[in-house]
C-alpha cells in the first residue's frame, strides 16, 4: 500500500519549522480571533447587517440565516473530509455516505420509528460508527486510487439504496419529510430559523474543535506520519492500517453528526446528498480552501456553498439572461463555473486559498509554493 500524497500538504509540516517561542503566542492570537468570530456569528440573528450581492437579505432574516447555517454545516463537513484527505492523506470518493447516514438515519429514527430527539441522535451516531467501521475495514485493504474507487462504490451502493427506495424507508427521489416526527417546537417553522442557525453554528464549532483535538493528539501525529512516511510508522511498531481506520471512523462519525444537523435545518432528507457528485463537491471545497490547512477546508466549504447558491441567482439575473448564448449558457451553470474554478486552482494555485493568503501575508515557506 502506498500513501496517497495530497497536494500542498508539505506546508503544514514546513510551518512547524518556525522558531518555537513564536508558536504558542500565535496560536493564542488565532484562538482569540476565532472566538471573536464565533461570538459575532452567534449574534448575527440579533443584528441587521446586510452584505448586498453575497447575502439575500439582512442577517436577521430567515433566508439569510438558513443560507449561513447551510454554509456552516457544509464547511464543517469539509473539515471532516480534511481530516481524511488533508491530515491522513486518504483520497476517499465516498464521504457523502456518512453524511447521508446522518441525514437518512436520523430521519428514519424520527419519522418512521417515532423516537425522541436524543435516542434518535444516539442511534444515528451508532449507525455512523458502524457504517464507517465496516466500509473502512474493507476498503483500507487497498491503498491509493483503488481505495478511492472502493469508497466510491460503497457510497454508490448507499445512493442506490436511497434512490431505489428499497424497503420503502427513504422515499426514493422525493426524499423524506419530517412531518410525523416528535420534535420540540423550538426547532420547527420559519420563525425559529434562528434556533436552527445556532444549532448549525454549534455543530460546526464542535466538529472543528473535535478535528483540532484529534489532529493535535498522539493519534493525530500518527495520522500525519502515515501520510508522510508509512514505512517509518511501521518501523515504530504501529500498524498504519489501524491509524487509517481510526481517521476514517472519526471523520465518518463526525460527518454523520453534521448530517443530523443538516436534516433538522432542511426539515427533510434530500437524496441529492447521497450522490457521488456531492462527495466530489466536498473534494472541490477542500482543494479550493487548501488541503494543507484546516481552516482552509472550512473556508472552502463556506465559499463553495455561497457561490453555488448565489451563482444560481446571478444566472437568472437580467444581466446574464440578456447575454448571447455563447456566454449565457456557461454562466447560467454554477457547476460549470465551480468546476472551471477548481481546475484553475489545481493548475495555478496548489495549496488553495489558504496558501494564497499565507503568501500574501508573507509567512509561507518559499520552497513549498
Amino acid at each position, binding site marked *: 500500500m502506498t500513501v496517497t500524497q495530497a497536494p500542498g500538504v508539505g506546508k503544514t509540516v514546513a510551518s512547524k519549522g518556525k522558531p518555537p517561542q513564536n508558536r504558542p503566542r500565535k496560536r493564542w492570537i488565532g484562538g482569540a480571533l476565532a472566538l471573536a468570530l464565533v461570538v459575532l456569528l452567534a449574534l448575527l440573528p440579533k443584528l441587521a447587517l446586510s452584505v448586498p450581492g453575497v447575502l439575500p437579505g439582512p442577517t436577521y432574516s430567515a433566508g439569510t440565516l438558513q443560507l449561513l447555517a447551510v454554509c456552516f454545516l457544509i464547511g464543517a463537513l469539509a473539515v471532516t473530509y480534511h481530516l481524511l484527505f488533508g491530515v491522513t492523506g486518504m483520497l476517499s470518493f465516498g464521504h457523502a455516505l456518512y453524511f447521508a447516514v446522518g441525514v437518512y438515519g436520523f430521519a428514519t429514527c424520527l419519522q418512521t420509528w417515532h423516537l425522541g430527539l436524543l435516542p434518535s441522535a444516539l442511534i444515528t451516531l451508532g449507525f455512523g460508527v458502524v457504517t464507517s467501521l465496516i466500509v473502512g475495514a*474493507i476498503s483500507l*485493504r487497498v491503498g491509493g486510487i483503488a481505495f478511492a*474507487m472502493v469508497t466510491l462504490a460503497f457510497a454508490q451502493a448507499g445512493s442506490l439504496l436511497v434512490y431505489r427506495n428499497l424497503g420503502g424507508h427513504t422515499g426514493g427521489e422525493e426524499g423524506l419529510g419530517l412531518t410525523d416526527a416528535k420534535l420540540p417546537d423550538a426547532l420547527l417553522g420559519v420563525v425559529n430559523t434562528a434556533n436552527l442557525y445556532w444549532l448549525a453554528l454549534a455543530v460546526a464549532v464542535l466538529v472543528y474543535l473535535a478535528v483540532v483535538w484529534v489532529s493535535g493528539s498522539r493519534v493525530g501525529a500518527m495520522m500525519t506520519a502515515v501520510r508522510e512516511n508509512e514505512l517509518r510508522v511501521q518501523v515504530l511498531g504501529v500498524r498504519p492500517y489501524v491509524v487509517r481506520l481510526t481517521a476514517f471512523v472519526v471523520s465518518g462519525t463526525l460527518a454523520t453528526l453534521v448530517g443530523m444537523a443538516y436534516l433538522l435545518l432542511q426539515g427533510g432528507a434530500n437524496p441529492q446528498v447521497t450522490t457521488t457528485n456531492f462527495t*466530489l463537491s466536498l473534494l472541490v471545497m477542500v482543494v479550493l480552501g487548501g488541503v494543507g490547512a484546516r481552516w482552509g477546508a472550512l473556508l472552502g466549504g463556506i465559499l463553495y456553498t455561497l457561490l453555488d447558491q448565489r451563482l444560481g441567482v446571478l444566472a437568472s439575473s437580467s444581466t446574464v439572461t440578456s447575454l448571447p448564448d455563447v456566454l449565457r449558457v456557461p454562466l447560467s451553470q454554477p457547476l460549470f463555473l465551480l468546476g472551471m474554478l477548481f481546475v484553475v486552482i489545481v*493548475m495555478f494555485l496548489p495549496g488553495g486559498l489558504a496558501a494564497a493568503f499565507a503568501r500574501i501575508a508573507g509567512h509561507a515557506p518559499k520552497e513549498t509554493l
Partner: protein
Amino acid sequence: MSVVVLLLITGLGLGALYFLAASGLSLIYGLMRVLNFAHGAFLTLGGYLGYKVASAFGPDSRTWPVFLLSLVVGAAGGAAFAALVELVLIRRLYEREIEQVLVTVGIGLAAVALVVGIWGADARPYPAPAWMSQVTGVLGAQVPNSRFVCILAAVLVFVLLNLLLGKTRYGLIIRAGVENRAMVAALGIDVRKSFTAVFVLGGALAGLGGVLAGLYNASLSPGGGDSLLIFAFIVVVIGGLGSIRGAAIAAVVVALLQQFANYYATSGVGDLMVVLALAVVLLVRPAGLFGRSVRIA
C-alpha cells in the same frame, strides 16, 4: 428459458457498454496512473454529439448511414475532447497524479454542467433506425436488435484493441509503459506521446460508448455518462487495472450479475450485488482478477 436468454443477451449488451467505458479507463490508468473522472463527460459528450448530428438530418435521422455517421462523430468528438484535456491540462501536471485526478474531476463536473446548459437536464429520445427497436427471436426470446449492435461493436473494439496492443509498435510501447514506465522512458522513447495516444483512444471509445448507450437506453441524459462511469470503475477494479482482457471479462460478469439479480430479486438488488462482488474481489485478490499486485498498491 426465453427469459434467461433475453436477460443473457441484454446483459451482454450492457456489458458491451461497460467494456467500451472501462477499456479506456483501464489503459489510461495502467499507463498514466490517472483515474479519469472526466470519462463520464467523454461518454455524455460523445452521445450528445452523435445525437446532434443525427437530429440535424431531420426526417432522414433514422437511416443507417446517419446512424453510422453519428457513431463516427461521437467517437471523434470524444477523442477530440480527450485530446484537448490531455494536452492543455493533464500534460502540465506530469507525474503529479493526484492533481491530475483532481483536474479530471473538475472537467467532469464542468463538462456535464455545460451539456445541461446547452441541451437541458431532461432526457431526450435517441433517433435510431427503426430496425434497432424491433426484436429478433432467439430461442423463443424477443431481443431488441440494439443489443446485438452494442455487442458487435464491443467485440470489434476488443479484437482491434488486442491487435493494436499485440501487433503494432505503438501497442508494444503502451504495453511496455504499463509494465514499467521509467524503463520505457530510459530507452529513449517519448512516453508522453503514448499518454496522449491512450487518452485519445480512451476518449474515442468513450464517445462511441456514449452513442451506443443512447441507442441501448433509447434516450440520452446528461447524467447518463457518470452513472455508466461508476460501473465502469467497478469493472476496471474487478478486472485488474491496466488489463484489457480483465476489463472485458469483468464487464460481462458485472453486467450479467446485475441483470439477473435485478430481474429475479427486486430492481436495484443487482446494482448492490455488483458492489458486493467488488468488495469480495478486493478481499480475496486486492489486485483484481487480472491485475498484478504491485500495480494497484
